[in-house]
């Protein structure tokens, strides 16, 4: 070991190196994501919650359908019922998204990463892109599986939906898109706040707590809040029936994407300027 040969070809071959590209950083971030166990577990939780919880809710709702009131039957939404688990599974995506960058801060890995790739915007972009792509694949697979499993459990006990029905294919595919936008939002939030707990708490507040608080507001306040609150508006992409005081699916999703873009831009600026 004292005989140290650092470079088999000698230091002269150094002249031949090429510049690092964004593709290199993408490959690197993919290796990072797949080489930690939290990724596997969070994605497993996403699928299990999305499909399993969706199945349980579908079975229970279909069972109660016969005894429900006429108005409840009128607003019966078999697609929404089967996708209910995906909405809960979004929490697993949010946690994993925050962790995949904030864990670099808590471990100190971020310094190693930024020494390897000092063009910091590339690190954030590659991380977001890789995690968004993984979420898209897992999210679409989960929502379509949840939809088919849910409809199979509903059929026979209550009216069920088919992909060919108006708005249904868009709603099911939309659930995967919603998770994908959320994935980018959580990576950006993690980069902005750096602490895993702070990042996760903020996203839980944005996703679940603040919309809940909005319900307690008087109508004149509540309606615009529920209409334009980014995650509420974005969730419209997963709805077949558009409720009052809510945006249409695509404009709603557009509002969410705009919000994600703003948070991402802030995270990018801060990451670029802050001492790491």
């Amino acid at each position, binding site marked *: 070991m*004292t005989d*140290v040969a650092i470079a088999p070809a000698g230091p002269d*071959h150094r002249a031949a190196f*090429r510049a690092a590209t964004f593709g*290199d950083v993408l490959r690197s971030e993919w*290796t*990072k994501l797949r080489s930690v166990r939290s990724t596997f577990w969070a994605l497993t939780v996403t699928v299990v919650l999305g499909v399993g919880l969706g199945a349980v809710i579908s079975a229970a709702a279909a069972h109660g359908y016969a005894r429900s009131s006429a108005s409840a039957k009128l607003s019966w939404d078999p697609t929404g019922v089967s996708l209910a688990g995906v909405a809960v599974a979004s929490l697993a995506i949010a946690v994993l998204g925050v962790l995949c960058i904030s864990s670099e801060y808590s471990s100190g890995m971020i310094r*190693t990463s930024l020494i390897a790739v*000092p063009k910091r915007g590339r690190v954030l972009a590659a991380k977001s892109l890789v995690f968004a792509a993984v979420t898209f694949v897992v999210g679409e697979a989960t929502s379509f599986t949840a939809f088919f499993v849910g409809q199979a459990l509903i059929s026979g006990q209550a009216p069920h939906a088919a992909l060919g029905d108006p708005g249904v294919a868009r709603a099911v595919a939309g659930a995967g898109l919603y998770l994908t936008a959320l994935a980018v939002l959580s990576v950006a939030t993690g980069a902005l706040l750096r602490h895993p707990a702070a990042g996760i708490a903020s996203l839980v507040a944005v996703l679940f707590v603040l919309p809940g608080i909005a319900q307690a507001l008087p109508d004149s306040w509540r309606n615009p809040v529920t209409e334009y609150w980014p995650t509420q508006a974005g969730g419209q992409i997963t709805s077949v029936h558009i409720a009052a005081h809510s945006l249409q699916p695509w404009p709603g999703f557009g509002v969410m994407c705009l919000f994600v873009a703003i948070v991402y831009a802030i995270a990018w600026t801060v990451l670029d300027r802050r001492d790491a």
Partner: protein
Amino acid sequence: MIEAHGLVKRYGSTTAVNDLSFSIRPGLVTGFLGPNGAGKTTTMRMILGLDAPTQGSVTVGGRSYRDLPAPMRQVGALLDAKALHGGRRARDHLLCLAQSNGIPRRRVDEVLCIVGLEGVARRRAKGFSLGMSQRLGIASALLGDPAVLIFDEPVNGLDPDGIHWVRTLMRTLAAEGRTVLVSSHLMSEMALTADHLLVIGRGRLIADTSTDEFVRSSSQQSVHVRSPRAAELAARCREAGATVRAGSTSPGAAAPVAGPGAGTDPDVIEITGMDSAEVGRLAAAHGIALSELIPVRASLEEAFMELTRESMEYQAAGATR
């Protein structure tokens, strides 16, 4: 080649690095030396683009670090051996770093062999000792086979074998014509490794000199003399302007100055302000026989202490040194 011009870093009202200018040349091991809190790590973080200087600039090979087209192929750095995700296997850790700079996969296995970690390549890094983490960090610095290497306290946590290995590695890297910057707060370590020294204290440059020159210029040399007529010689030397104190039996270890204390030998004196040749001539001129005449060079550690005494940021209250 690393060049800094008027580098300043302030955190609020604290000035961590104050007007630092230097140029680090290839082919040498340059020791970056200073007490804890002197600004060594902050300077290295600025070289590597992690911290932005408040004023001034620093370049590697003529470019600021953030503008390097393939950073890991140009600069290899180890700042903090524990700065990695503990849940990742050693090999995956190196692989993700290699990929980020388009370094081929086989190089990962090469560097694992160079640092002797091939046996634990599939172990997760959180189970690594500090010594193993240091080796992993050194492996990541070597991934891109870079012309410039920067190591912050690389021997921390290594066993004697490991320390020897790091020294050999630094010297080999420099001998291959690379620029090697190694920080340490241990003078003795630098004496064995570094050709050139950058000494800083409280963020200021104290010395930028070769290791030999540093010891020669910054420390007082003394002459250890044993003679049956030591008292007479002492008087002659004082007349000639030198400082004389009672010596101990072993050269270099100063005895309590005005003490009838143990270890003091009335025949032994320590003379400063004259070199051994001058003392010898003086003794001969007065017919004083000498049984020992030994030039004593302060150790590098002493030279360093002397130089940085005023600039120590954290000093135990009442400590004399």
